[in-house]
């Protein structure tokens, strides 16, 4: 077995939390159950990985098999990576029957014709997701297995989720290979990024609970029930306002759990508006400013702002349109013409 492969397997196993190593090796299905029985999974990880490499040596593992283990790890720990969403477009043709073998063949051929040294691995999952792992090399160097790109493609949808490696120069080639293999004509990057792959899918596949405008202006009956033990000496004066806020929140955010996003970024390309006396920025250049909201769960925290008494309800539509517009990166430009207010670029 190649030394580099052995080292790669060793390092991959070291990444896995100790309690999950056995499970992942079983999923990998490269070592037999009998072989796995010989490993002591209660020792320190260093030793576990050495024993695993030893067994892989016995089975003569090559890089292809090692890559599969890496996909398995990244599928389970998908939220460690940052995912971008790409949308593909056909020019109005009918839906063709998707042939997985054909897709794989075309994808590999396209990549390999441009770049000789690539490692390409496919793995299909039950939810119709096709995971592709690509390790990139150059005409003179073997692929770097430690910085691969991952692609997740649901064949019945025009969406592709990509977690690119640091080597962004390979992205155009990757995109090209994808549209060729899937019989589309163009691909564009959407302004939507998150660590949570499932949330991105929820947003573009519209799987989150949609908000329905409520037509009845009265508050929902029976929602806030007074507990028996409420102290009558404490009077809440603004109950109806609180109920209004809950109602507005429900209309805007819906009832269900929010998709998990970590950022919303607004790039301002507007003119700085100040009072005439301040006389700032004589040259009247656009004011360069970037506003970034970050949170472990951005939409949930936005939803909590008004009920927590930290903001007015309803919130600015720039914040509440994120899920509906399927984007969390915005560019705000000056609106030219009659109305000098700024607007959000499409």
């Amino acid at each position, binding site marked *: 077995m190649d030394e580099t492969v052995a080292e790669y397997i060793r390092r991959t196993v070291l990444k896995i939390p100790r309690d999950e190593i056995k499970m992942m090796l079983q999923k990998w299905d490269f070592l037999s159950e009998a072989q796995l029985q010989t490993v002591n999974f209660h020792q320190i990880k260093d030793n576990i990985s050495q024993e695993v490499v030893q067994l892989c040596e016995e089975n003569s593992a090559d890089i292809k098999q090692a890559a599969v283990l890496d996909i398995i790890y990244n599928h389970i720990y998908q939220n460690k990576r940052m995912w971008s969403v790409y949308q593909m477009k056909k020019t109005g043709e009918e839906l063709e029957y998707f042939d997985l073998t054909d897709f794989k063949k075309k994808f590999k051929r396209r990549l390999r014709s441009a770049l000789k040294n690539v490692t390409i691995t496919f793995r299909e999952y039950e939810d119709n997701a096709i995971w592709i792992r690509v390790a990139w090399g150059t005409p003179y160097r073997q692929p770097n297995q430690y910085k691969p790109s991952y692609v997740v493609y649901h064949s019945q949808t025009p969406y592709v989720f990509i977690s690119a490696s640091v080597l962004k120069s390979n992205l155009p080639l990757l995109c090209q290979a994808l549209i060729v293999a899937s019989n589309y004509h163009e691909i564009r990057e959407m302004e939507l990024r998150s660590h949570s792959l499932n949330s991105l899918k929820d947003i573009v596949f519209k799987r989150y609970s949609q908000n329905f405008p409520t037509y009845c202006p009265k508050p929902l009956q029976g929602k806030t029930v007074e507990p028996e033990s409420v102290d009558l000496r404490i009077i809440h004066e603004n109950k109806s306002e*609180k109920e209004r806020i809950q109602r507005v929140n429900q209309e805007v955010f819906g009832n269900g759990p929010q998709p998990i996003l970590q950022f919303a970024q607004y790039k301002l390309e507007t003119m700085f508006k100040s009072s005439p006396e301040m006389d700032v920025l004589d040259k009247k250049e656009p004011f360069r400013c970037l506003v970034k909201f970050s949170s472990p769960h951005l939409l949930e925290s936005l939803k909590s702002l008004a009920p927590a008494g930290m903001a007015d309800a309803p919130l600015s539509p720039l914040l509440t349109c994120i899920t509906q517009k399927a984007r969390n990166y915005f560019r705000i430009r000056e609106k030219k013409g009659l109305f000098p207010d700024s607007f959000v670029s499409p």
Partner: protein
Amino acid sequence: LVGSDEELQQKLAEAILQEKRDFKISIHIATSLPLPSERDHLRPRIDLIVFMIDIKSKYSLKNVEASLAHVDATFFLGKVYFLVTGVGRVNCCSIETNAVCKLGEAYCSPVLFCELELEGVRVATAQRLLRMLQICAGLVPGFSALSFSLLMRNSADD
């Protein structure tokens, strides 16, 4: 209690009610003033108004400033206090203490600082407020709301 953090207001109100006293009190929790007029007939005389400003939230300060305009001038003779909360979280301050002190001066009302997330401080604050309320309601002979608030403000300046 006028402020934007309902949970904290509720906790403070409960802490006040836990204290021993020999008079009846009722606590009204509001997010802003003016109070809804539908309930005017249900309200007794108001003896003390405490504006709660969360030092971590500019929004709460704006809220309080807007509400101040709706307070009758007579209240500012010792029946209005500013309570600045959240001072324990030094790294999250959004409002300068200077700004709040200026607000206190502008409205001739004392400013108190506290951290209501700590139970001990919450209890101590509740005790202070209860004492202030007693004085403002005229239940302490020899002490008027005005004289007490002057005392508070002068000691704060030292």
